Every structure is written in structure tokens, then in C-alpha cells.
């Protein structure tokens, strides 16, 4: 424990080298003495000279071990909410998201007046790109329009939410595994919930199919909305498709990932190629769907469900098309 108190703090740069070296040596000696003392007192009397036992790179090893032990979890607080969102991580991510929002993707927002004042509310958007940037951007948009307390939770597909290393990060940022139980609980607690009913089919589109919405799951969004009576707000996102233009998909053996996307920069440039391109993003919020007068019994009418789901899909497709028309170019 005393090893942690690094002697660097005692050094100031103006002093001559000899004085500095002497001071450093004195501090080291004092620390070594303290360490030996502690070992004598608490180490069960097994006090042999420290130099013989410790490895030459013991400190480096200890550092390495410590950083391995906290890999991916060094920056977080002691408290998380029910779904694992960590306020400290969210606060730290906020400037990054602000930068992405203002400067990098220059998000153009329209239809903010359609967003309800407060939750519970389902925000339904088109999905694009393997990484959940669109979820984060919608989350950030709502947070800006309302308040940090109203920060929505965004749904993340199973394969990513259960991927080792990704899972702890996504949960701390407000990502939740996409499933009906989670939606019901979050809406019951009055949250905004961002869902992508296209799921994997939307994320795994190739560039050729960009901005063409895929089938909307099995009508789960409408079913949950009918049963809980929350408003459904359609959102169209433009720009995320070109941020990671997937030229074609390569399915590796082993199935760790569902497939490896091949983009103009990935895997050609390695990890650098995983950075999204600075495209121009448009976020279009549509008018909320009025479902409350149908009542929870309507959720059992399968034909109605599929018709409403299709309506919602068409609505979002229209928002995306509007966004595409209004955008001057991919980059501007």
C-alpha cells in the first residue's frame, strides 16, 4: 500500500539535479523502511530483505495487473441505476457526444415540437450501422431538448449487448438489451425508450440498400405501445448509413460476430477504419401516433397489429425520405 505513494510528487523542476536525486533517494529509502516495517508487523514475520525477493520489474507487473483488473471499468462511480446506467460515465461521455452532435456529424434537427414533454414514450427509429451511434445521438438529442434526467434508454441488439467487453460499456451509457420485458419495465418507470424495430436486419444492411427500411420485427413495438398506452414517436435518421458504408459482408468461421462488415476503411486501416465517417446527419421527429383510444384489447388483434406496424414503418420511411431530400449532400 505504501508503494502507491509515488515519490514523483516531491520533485519540482527548478532544483539542481543532485539535490533532486538526493531527495529522491531519501524518499525511496523512507518508503522502503516503511514497507519493511509494515511487513514485519503484518506480514506474519516473514521479513526477508526486500531486494532478494521482489522481481526487478515488480512495480511494472503490479501496475499491469492493476490495470488489467480494472480493464474497462476504471471510470465509473459506485452507484448504477436498475439497468446499469452510471451517472459518472454518462457525464463523461456527454462532451464527446456534444462534439459528435455539433461538430462531427452537424446534426440537423427538425420536428422537436412533436416530442412529448415527458415519458413514458416509445421513440421508434430506423437502424443503421453496426455500432449503436444512432441510439446515442437520439439519446443525446432528447436529453438536450428536455433534461438530463429525461435521458432515454436505447435498445441494443442481443449480439452486441452480450458481447464481452462491449456489454459493461453499453450498459453504463444507458444501453439496454432489446426485449419486451425490459420495454415494459422502463415504460412503467416513465422513461423515454429508443427502439429500433428493424433490429439486426437494419444494422446489417449493405450500402446498396441504404435508407430502405426492413421489416419491423413481429409487431412487438405496437403491441407494447397498445398494452401500456404510451405514445409512439417516429424518428427518421439520415447520415448514419454513410458513416459506416458496408460494401459487403464477410461471414468468418467461428461466429464470434454475426459477420464482419467490409467498408472502404475497415478492415483495411485496422482499428482506425472503425471510426465513423464525418457525414451530415439529419434527425426528423414525426408526429406521435395516436393509439391510446384503441385500448389494450387491440393488442390481441393480429391483423390490426400488423397494419399499424406497417403504418409506422411507412411513416418513418417518409421521414427518412424527407431528410434525404432536404440534405444537400452526404458531407454537407
Amino acid at each position, binding site marked *: 500500500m505504501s508503494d502507491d505513494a509515488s515519490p514523483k510528487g516531491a520533485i519540482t523542476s527548478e532544483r539542481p539535479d543532485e539535490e533532486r536525486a538526493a531527495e529522491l533517494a531519501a524518499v525511496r529509502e523512507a518508503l522502503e523502511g516503511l514497507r519493511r516495517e509494515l511487513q514485519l508487523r503484518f506480514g506474519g514475520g516473514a521479513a526477508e530483505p526486500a531486494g532478494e525477493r521482489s522481481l526487478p520489474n515488480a512495480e511494472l507487473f503490479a501496475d499491469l495487473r492493476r490495470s488489467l483488473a480494472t480493464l474497462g*471499468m476504471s471510470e465509473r462511480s459506485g452507484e448504477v441505476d*436498475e439497468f446499469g446506467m452510471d451517472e459518472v460515465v454518462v457525464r463523461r461521455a456527454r462532451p464527446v457526444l456534444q462534439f459528435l452532435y455539433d461538430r462531427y456529424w452537424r446534426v440537423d434537427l427538425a420536428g422537436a415540437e412533436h416530442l412529448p414533454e415527458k415519458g413514458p414514450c416509445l421513440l421508434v427509429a430506423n437502424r443503421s450501422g453496426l455500432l449503436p451511434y444512432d441510439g446515442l445521438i437520439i439519446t443525446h438529442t432528447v436529453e438536450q431538448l428536455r433534461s438530463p434526467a429525461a435521458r432515454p434508454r436505447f435498445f441494443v441488439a*442481443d449480439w452486441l449487448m*452480450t458481447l*464481452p467487453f462491449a*456489454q459493461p460499456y453499453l450498459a453504463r451509457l444507458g444501453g439496454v438489451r432489446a*426485449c419486451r420485458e425490459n420495454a415494459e*419495465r422502463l415504460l412503467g418507470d416513465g422513461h423515454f425508450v429508443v427502439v429500433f424495430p428493424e433490429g439486426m436486419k437494419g444494422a446489417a444492411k449493405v450500402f446498396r440498400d441504404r435508407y430502405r427500411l426492413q421489416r419491423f420485427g413481429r409487431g412487438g413495438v405496437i403491441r407494447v405501445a397498445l398494452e401500456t398506452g404510451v405514445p409512439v414517436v417516429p424518428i427518421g435518421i439520415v447520415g448514419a448509413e454513410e458513416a459506416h458504408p458496408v460494401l459487403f459482408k464477410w461471414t468468418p468461421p467461428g461466429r464470434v460476430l454475426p459477420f464482419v462488415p467490409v467498408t472502404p476503411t475497415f478492415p483495411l486501416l485496422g482499428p482506425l477504419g472503425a471510426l465513423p465517417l464525418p457525414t451530415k446527419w439529419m434527425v426528423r421527429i414525426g408526429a406521435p401516433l395516436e393509439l391510446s383510444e384503441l385500448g389494450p384489447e387491440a393488442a390481441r388483434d393480429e391483423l390490426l397489429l400488423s397494419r399499424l406496424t406497417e403504418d409506422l414503418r411507412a411513416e418513418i420511411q417518409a421521414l427518412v425520405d424527407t431528410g434525404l431530400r432536404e440534405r444537400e449532400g452526404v458531407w454537407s
Partner: protein
Amino acid sequence: MSSEATSHLTRRSTLSAPGVIAVTGLESFIGSQLVRRLVGRPAGLRVVGLDQRRPMRFPEGARFAKLDLTRPTADGALAEVLAAERVEAVVHAAFRTNPTPDLELDHELETIGSLHVMNACAAAKVKRLVVASSTELYGPWPDNPNFLTERHPLRGHPQAHSVRDRIEMESLLADWSARHPDVEVTVLRPCWIFGPTYWSRVTRYFSLPALAVPLGYDPLMQLVHEEDVVRAFELAALQSCPGIYNLVGSGVLPLSTLLRLADKQTWRLPGPLLHRLAYFPSQGQTGDPPEAFYDYLRYLWVADGRRGWDVFGEPVYSTREAWISFVSSRRMRRYR
């Protein structure tokens, strides 16, 4: 069977009708603590403790009866005792706190033994049966929702034999309960129990000064304090609350935060290495492969406790407080 069996019993006339509770499994934490609490209650309540042998510290006020649930004739023997003592409620807590490598015996006790208890309750016209289960039965699965409700299917862990046995027990219990609608059946599913006195393979593992945990995973964990568990069992035995309830502490914490609160040295190892190197600390004496334990530190298996809180009251200890109570009782170095 019962009328013939009870005819020779001598104490029959001296028994008062109301308020007789039988508890099986006096060696288990829940059984022993529950007997102690029930005996301490002021009302005229009588408690019958049932186990293989009389525990060293068995409260004066309670009656002891010998019962070996692994014997094929246990149901008849138990029915005799229940009828003789005019037991109205049975709390069945005779389950392994720690699974043993003797898979056959564990199965005999946990599944077949429970079947004996059910049949004896039916024969002795017991009005209420409270069974101790666990949220471990939901199993750690990557596709679990964040909060498992009582309606969620019990998928367990394919390699944890005790979990497997108890899932079978619960399905037998559901069938039995459907056939005996006049018996109130309460199933309580506590999550991992922590506290100053509770001792299990899980608390033993978390008492180690240095821990190996899976690399790349950091699931949300949920704990419950031993006092909250015993209190809920006491209420379930005394009042009418048929159904299945999760017994969990409020709040969740990531595993890494728990380990940090206890100031543990943590080694994050990739799965295959972890399972080979850290076999003993996790599963040394349970007869299961290490996955059967480490998957519980890998995937989510947090249960929704709101139904239980409505009936048994809010838990006194949150997950964090249960953990801190455990950590400080084990005199670990530091906590915040």
C-alpha cells in the same frame, strides 16, 4: 394411511389446534433461524423441527422430530408426525446450502425428498406449505431480460446439478399444487444471501482475499441480506400469501463495484484459463464443473422483487448494504 398411522399416537389429545408450524431442514440457515424466530414469538405458537439429527443448539421451546428425507418411507413417517402434532403449516427448507459431489444423494434429498414432503402434507391435511427455492433457478443466460419476473421459465444452468434438482422440484410442486388446491403453496426464491453469519460456497468464494473473475464481463449483481430472508419466511409461514415470490434486496451493483467496495485483488481471466486455474475456489466441493459457478458471474440473472416487497415489505438492506454487512463482518480491509 394417515388415520391408521395416527391412531397409536399418544400426544394427540394434548395438542392445541391452531398455530402449529413444522420446519424441515434444521441444519440449513433458513430452517435454523426460522425456528429460533418462531419460538421467540409471544403468541401461543408451537414449532416442530424436523431433521436427521437434533442440532447442537436447538431452542428449548420447540419440539424436535427425527426425519430422514432420503429414505423411501419418509413420506409416511413425516405424515405421521404432521398429523400427530396437528401441524397446519410446513416450511420446507431441507435443501443443500452447498451442493455436494454426491449427485445421487442430492437428488434424493432435494427432488425426491421434497416430493415426500408434498405427499405427507397432502396426507396430513396441512393447510399451508412454504418452500425455499432460489433465483439461481432462472439461470444466468445472455438473453435474460434485466429483471426476471416470477413468471419467467426456470432455465437454470445445465451443469449445476443442485439447480437442476430444484427446478425439477418446482415443477413437481406446481403439479402437486394443481392437484391439491386446498393447500396454500408459497414458494420463496431468494437470490444470493449475504450477511454476517450466513455461510455458503458463494460467501466462501467472496471471502477470498484475491478473486479470479471472468474477463470481459461485468454483470449487474443482486444480493439479499440474511435477515430480510428470514423475516420473509417467517411472514410466509404465519400469513396467507400463496404464490411465488422473488426475495431480493433493492438495487443492483456491477460485480466490479462489489469487488472494489471490498477492496479485493481481482484477477480477470479469459474463460478457459479461469476454468482451469480457478477450479477449486469456485466449485471445489460441489461436484460441478467451474462454469456452473462462473456463469453466474458472467451473465445477468437479476430478479424482479417488487411482488415480494408488496407482500413482505421493503427489504431492510439493499444490495449494497447486504454486501457491506458481509464485508465488514469478515473484517476485510476497507469499504466505502
